[in-house]
């Protein structure tokens, strides 16, 4: 799943650590989501969406894996 998390985090001047603390996950999880190695759970995606005041589909783009 593609996402704009790194861009949004930069816009808000958050470090990965800051974002991890706000969302309630580890810094490694934020890093893995940004690198698109790990898809977040629905509650985490909602928390991110609420924080950046954007709909989930604007932040995360689903792409079918081949």
């Amino acid at each position: 799943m593609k996402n704009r998390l790194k861009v949004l985090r930069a816009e808000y001047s958050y470090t990965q650590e800051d974002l991890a603390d706000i969302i309630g996950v580890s810094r490694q999880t934020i890093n893995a989501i940004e690198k698109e190695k790990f898809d977040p759970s629905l509650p985490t995606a909602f928390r991110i969406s609420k924080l950046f005041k954007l709909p989930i589909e604007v932040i995360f783009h689903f792409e079918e894996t081949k």
Partner: protein
Amino acid sequence: MKKERKKNLYNLALWTWSWVATLAIASFGPKYIWDDHTVLTTLAISVNFVHGILMIVANRRMFNNFDELERKIHLESLALTLGLAVVVGLSYSLLDTTNLIAYDAAISNLVIFIGLTYLVLVTINTRRYA
């Protein structure tokens, strides 16, 4: 989350060390400390068992405090470790019962194998998502 994690990690470390210490007492005490006194040996084994249960409870508490990625990493590692422990453990036992190895199979070897396998798999899986 960080405070809770530190507290859980500290508790797990505490109960793990106390379990190891009571295991050592229960293993060597009968021979070197209380000269095979049945009541003391039973008491030492019981105390070790209770500490083991408390260690498991502490481990469960820490696991439940993991976030989604950490749970995935540990679950994958646990699944592989469990599978390998069953397969390797039974092969090891067969090697013993068919006398293909000169010594008796010891449970401690399997415990060491499980511990090392889990450690290696958690390291590999953590790096996969780094």
